[in-house]
């Protein structure tokens, strides 16, 4: 029997597999395909203090082994989440984690404080890396001072496990991760999407309504893996790896690079049952390699 439990500070995952924000709805959308109790956690759609309509259609462009999106944090606001969605999903037999975003520090703080009051939400993932909103979002996540400001402010009001989701659209992601750690983050998750662009040559126009969007999917995996490795070497807090993970083998690679847990994002669109398959596949890998505890894999890359 392989041990799969992962302990992050104050947050226990039954296995290292979670689903990435914005790709898994509120878990309900996938209930026909995945037994949610087989997952370490689900991270629900980015939630902001106020209702957001998001960006205009078209919001998506398919790319080679990936996709661009510019959804722009469409959600009904934190109060709607608390009153309407939370009661439906709070008793899922897995960690339900809320991704929190904002356009200024006060909004981040106000939304985080409201989630802090919810008994069955053991953690938030602070989204300082959304490339698709004009104000806030990625603006906070691309400088050390920006990330320090927002993480410190949220840390003051949020008392449970605080994950900070990092942007890959920076020169040195390890510095940003260290700034998040110093400001009080309990863990960092990376990577959010890479800023990209698509053009329709026939019409000579951009494909996306916002011209640029975030790239995700299998194509970003090597970049994500490199960044997880670079960050895991520098920080003391746990690292949650994501970016293009589409199989158990991909997930194992992130654990070897130093991730304590992983998230599955865009791959959920191609195979809605992939998250539970990855969780099973990790166990099979451990059995095949005589690994008794998944924790043995974390950062065990042989150089």
């Amino acid at each position, binding site marked *: 029997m392989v041990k799969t439990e992962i302990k992050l500070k104050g947050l226990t995952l039954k296995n290292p597999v979670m689903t990435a924000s914005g790709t898994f709805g509120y878990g309900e*959308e996938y209930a*026909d395909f995945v037994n949610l109790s087989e997952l370490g956690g689900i991270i629900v759609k980015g939630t902001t203090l106020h209702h957001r309509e998001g960006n205009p*259609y078209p*919001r*998506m462009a*398919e790319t080679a082994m990936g996709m661009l999106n510019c959804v722009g944090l*469409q959600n009904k606001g934190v109060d709607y989440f608390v009153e309407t969605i939370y009661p439906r999903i709070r008793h899922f037999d897995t960690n339900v984690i809320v991704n929190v975003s904002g356009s200024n520090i006060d909004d981040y703080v106000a939304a985080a404080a409201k989630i802090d009051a919810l008994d069955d939400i053991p953690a938030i993932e602070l989204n300082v890396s959304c490339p698709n909103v004009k104000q806030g979002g990625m603006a906070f996540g691309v400088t050390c001072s920006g990330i320090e400001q927002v993480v410190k402010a949220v840390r003051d009001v949020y008392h449970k496990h605080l994950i900070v989701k990092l942007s890959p659209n920076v020169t040195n992601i390890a510095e940003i991760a260290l700034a998040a750690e110093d400001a009080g983050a309990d863990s960092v998750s990376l990577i959010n999407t890479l800023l990209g662009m698509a053009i329709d040559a026939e019409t000579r126009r951009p494909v996306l309504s916002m011209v640029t969007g975030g790239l995700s999917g299998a194509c970003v995996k090597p970049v994500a893996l490199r960044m997880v490795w670079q960050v895991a070497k520098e920080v003391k807090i746990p690292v949650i790896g994501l970016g293009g993970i589409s199989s158990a083998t991909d997930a194992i690679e992130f654990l070897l690079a130093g991730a304590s847990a992983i998230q599955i994002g865009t791959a959920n*669109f*191609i195979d*809605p049952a992939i998250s539970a398959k990855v969780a099973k596949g990790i166990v099979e890998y451990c059995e095949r390699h005589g690994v008794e505890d998944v924790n043995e894999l974390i950062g065990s890359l042989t150089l």
Partner: protein
Amino acid sequence: MKRISDFTVIAKQSWFRVAMLRLHCDEILPEIRGGQFVQVRVEGCQKAYLRRPISVHDVDYQHNTIDLLIQEKHEGTKTLCNLPVGAKVNIVLPLGNGFTMPDKNDNVLLVGGGIGIAPLLYFAKTCKDLTTKFLLGGRSESDLMLLDRFREIGDVFVTTDDGSMGEKGFVTQHSVWNTLKINKIYTCGPIPMMKAVAKIAREKDIWCEVSLENQMACGIGACLCCVENTTEGNVCVCKEGPVFNIERLLW
């Protein structure tokens, strides 16, 4: 309940850039409503990362088959159109909401254009007590495949842009609009056509549902990519639609 199932291509018919695949499933098919769609995984095509949403053209519960009418638009749909008999296909189904079932006293017109005729066949078959009337349009005769299947279950009126079949012009210009008494319209086809049909419906105060095909990623309401701006703001076409009453749209 939605599910992921493997299907096998057991028969196919091909036309210029269009194919009809008959797909057999070893498992018992779930209940599928007319106007619902499926998400088809595209294997072996480097340019198709995501699944392709395709509306259900016909269902045979007795033989566990579904028919998909697929138009080759880009590389992904081209790969699907080229699938040989015997090929395995992974499909998520059934997705979205179907058309609203009419009452048996309704006078219904089903208006389809181009590949948009696909869901109307199966929907009409599920409306058992109804005398079905189809108004189908294409650019020319070669666009209007499978008309015999429609004729088997109802009256078929046709327009073509070039006049090679039926009346010349757009579906909205067909003489049937002046002769038939209609109180419900269901339509699927190119956006300009559906907008023109919706305009007629508004003018004549006729109840009307349209089926949209905004570009999708997940197909189950998770990614929020396929939104349509409606009277209630942005909503997912895959989950809230693909069928919308025109009263909900900002057309």
